[in-house]
């Protein structure tokens, strides 16, 4: 899949410009003079640059760093010149910085002084190395360190058309790969075998990176038969190994890939070696569908998170129909989970403060759990539109939908 073609147009240059404008206006509104960004998703958001996808250790030691001011393009410091967007002005392209080490922090301080001047400034950081935490306040005594998240969160909250298209493509690649994985699911296959098929397919289909170690969790039907659980709820997600999957096991699937920096989020429940779910399992699925229907019915601009929370819970009297340690709904963008969050332990007042707006992406992840008999979890992605929502995900529910194709 080419990055510049598809069903609807994707203009990466426009996407970068619009994101930079949002950051600039949010910085001006909050009186923040600069952002220093080191988080993978944040640097991608601010610059559109790409780099070698890796674990955190490599990403920290050979990082891409963005310094954003309210005026003009961001400054990008990267060890991957080939990952610099073509439209980034030459004066904004720089060699790498390494604030992980004290020597690199001194260099960062010099760069900040050079770019911003040695005056009293409010500078937002998303994360600090231990060395930056220790040395930066001394090197730049006039600088006030503030939380860059205060600027990033509102800028990222409502997606532009190009961002939505990137998320749609990420989700599509993820789903297409899952067709191959699901057809390989049979007694005796190992979790790592499914991972192999998945990783092979996502790159073939155009993914620019994998986001998380894919989850193929073989889930006992009773919580007490599984690992010890701190909150008493279903332990999930448990990392994959070479575990052998066996006939009839309930497998809860979760994965996320990246396309041009944007995440997908795929969640389904599968059964090993079974073409049809039992009547009780189909009932779990039906209850899950009912929760989804009640929530989606009121997804439109102006609806609050608390209204969504209550709609999900209506009729589900024994437990809230989602995982206690997660949420009913999370957002998604250059992070696999970002605001809006609905149904977390931040509580009802917080949920009430969340008001849906056009461009928000919602990942709905209700979970039905019938202890002793298993349950059902799947995830769906929608984007809030001017009048309601539109789907960003589309994947069958086999073997829980009796006729092989469940429809809303």
């Amino acid at each position, binding site marked *: 899949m080419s990055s510049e073609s598809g069903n609807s147009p994707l203009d990466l240059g426009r996407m970068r410009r619009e994101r930079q404008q949002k950051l600039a206006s949010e910085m001006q509104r909050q009186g923040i003079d600069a952002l220093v960004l080191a988080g993978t998703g944040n640097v991608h958001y601010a610059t559109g640059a790409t780099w070698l996808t890796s674990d955190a*250790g490599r990403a920290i030691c050979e990082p891409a760093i963005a310094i954003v001011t309210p005026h003009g393009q961001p400054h990008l410091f990267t060890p991957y010149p080939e990952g610099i967007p073509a439209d980034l002005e030459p004066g904004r392209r720089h060699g790498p910085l390494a604030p992980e080490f004290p020597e690199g922090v001194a260099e960062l301080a010099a760069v900040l002084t050079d770019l911003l001047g040695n005056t009293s400034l409010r500078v937002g950081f998303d994360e600090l190395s231990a060395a930056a935490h220790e040395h930066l306040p001394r090197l730049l005594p006039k600088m006030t360190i503030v939380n860059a998240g205060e600027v990033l969160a509102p800028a990222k909250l409502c997606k532009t058309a190009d961002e939505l298209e990137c998320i749609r493509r990420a989700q599509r690649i993820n789903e297409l790969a899952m067709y191959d994985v699901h057809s390989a699911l049979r007694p005796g296959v190992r979790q790592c075998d499914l991972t192999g098929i998945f990783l092979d397919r996502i790159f073939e289909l155009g993914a620019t990176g994998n986001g998380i*170690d894919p989850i193929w969790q073989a889930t006992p039907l009773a919580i007490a038969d*599984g690992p010890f659980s701190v*909150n008493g709820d279903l332990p999930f997600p448990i990392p994959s190994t070479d575990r052998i999957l066996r006939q009839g096991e309930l497998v809860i699937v979760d994965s996320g890939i990246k396309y041009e920096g944007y995440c997908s989020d795929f969640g389904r429940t599968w059964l090993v070696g079974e073409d049809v779910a039992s009547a009780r399992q189909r009932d779990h699925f039906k209850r899950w569908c009912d929760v989804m229907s009640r929530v989606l019915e009121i997804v439109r601009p102006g609806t609050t998170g608390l209204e969504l929370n209550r709609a999900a819970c209506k009729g589900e009297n024994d437990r809230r129909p989602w995982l206690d340690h997660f949420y009913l709904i999370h957002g998604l963008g250059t992070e696999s989970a970002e605001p809006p969050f609905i149904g977390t332990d931040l509580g009802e007042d917080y949920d009430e403060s969340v008001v849906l707006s056009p461009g928000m992406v919602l990942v709905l992840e209700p979970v039905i759990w019938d202890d002793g008999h298993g349950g059902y979890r799947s995830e769906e992605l929608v984007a809030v539109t001017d009048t309601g929502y539109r789907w960003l995900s589309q994947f069958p529910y086999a073997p829980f939908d009796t006729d092989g194709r469940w429809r809303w």
Partner: protein
Amino acid sequence: MVNTVPNLGVMALEDDGRVDFARLRRQRRQRVLDAMAERDFDVLILGREANARYATGARRLWMSGTRPFAPGCVLVHANGSVHLLNNWDEGIPTEIPRDHLFGLSWNPVTYVERLKGIPGLTSARRIGVDAMTPLWRQLLGLVAPAAELRDAQAMLLELRMRKSAEELRCIRTAVAIAEASLAAAIDALRPGIRERTLLGAFNRRMTAYGITAPSMEGTFCAIEPGPVGSRARVRRLTSDRHIDAGALVALSGGVLYAGYEGAVGRTWPCIGPGTGMAAVRAEHRDLRRRWTAVWNRVADRCRPGATGDDLRAAYEASGETLPPFPIAYSVGIGYEAPIAGSSLGPIFDRRWRLEPGMVLGVQAYVAGSAGGYFGLETVLITPDGHEVLSSLSHGPLLEAD
């Protein structure tokens, strides 16, 4: 008895677990606690997954890229206890009791309360942290009001860089898996194949060994020739491109075994099936010879007492230009630190002095107008020199000599 040829494999054997993980964890944790005493840290609060894994052996979910700091692991020196942010005990070593696990929270007030419940944390005077965020600078002030928060990352790096025998067994296993996976990509290499298909082949073979996450997505990139008299640039980001017959292809990947990284890199000519050695071009063999010359100079300095700057100087003395990436980095639970040739310069490199037990990824790139040659080896520093842990062939370019 010292078995000089390690019995590498990922399956536990009836008579031998191959790696004694209980011993591995015990040694690592004790080293961390001892270092805390030396540096006068009452408590360590770790957000970096590699540090938490080193200190505890906890196997938690792999995610690509950075994660912002949050207290995911707390070590209290006074009682030697370890507390982990984890909602379940799967992946948590048995020596960590269940009541030392604390649950995930999205609510800073709840998170702070859970931390306050850790005995010895609220009264700490000196807390070591491995990273920070502006929000946690404030919140940790609520958890331990009297404490100063100091950089512990340098201390942790120092510990992690010197490997135990058990750690080396893990790294050797990881290198063997990385080589097997790279060999699968090499097997798939043929004219017309796309770069990303090679990445898929690497991953497919990696997972056959029970591994579900790489340390990096690796480089599977054709090196395009430059104009006459120029140096071909190496790309490191695998793309959609189809690889032409006769192209040189940089191939490099890394895998994680029990958290430890094994990595290897080679350059292979894209020769069609049945074409044979006649298709190997003399200019490409020259590039490989130049690469070997740099490698020999750098490897010669891989011995106790040498500094990162000595490696850099050896590289430069070969007459080759330093590549736009470090020529040596410390490797253990993932990438630990650049040791030589990074953008931080020679003074930074001089701070690292090689010691027995250190493991380095050593990489070099040479280029001409006909293309370039990239190679990465994993090297163990031994008491009297070094041992190259990677053993995969350099392929047709070497054999054609």
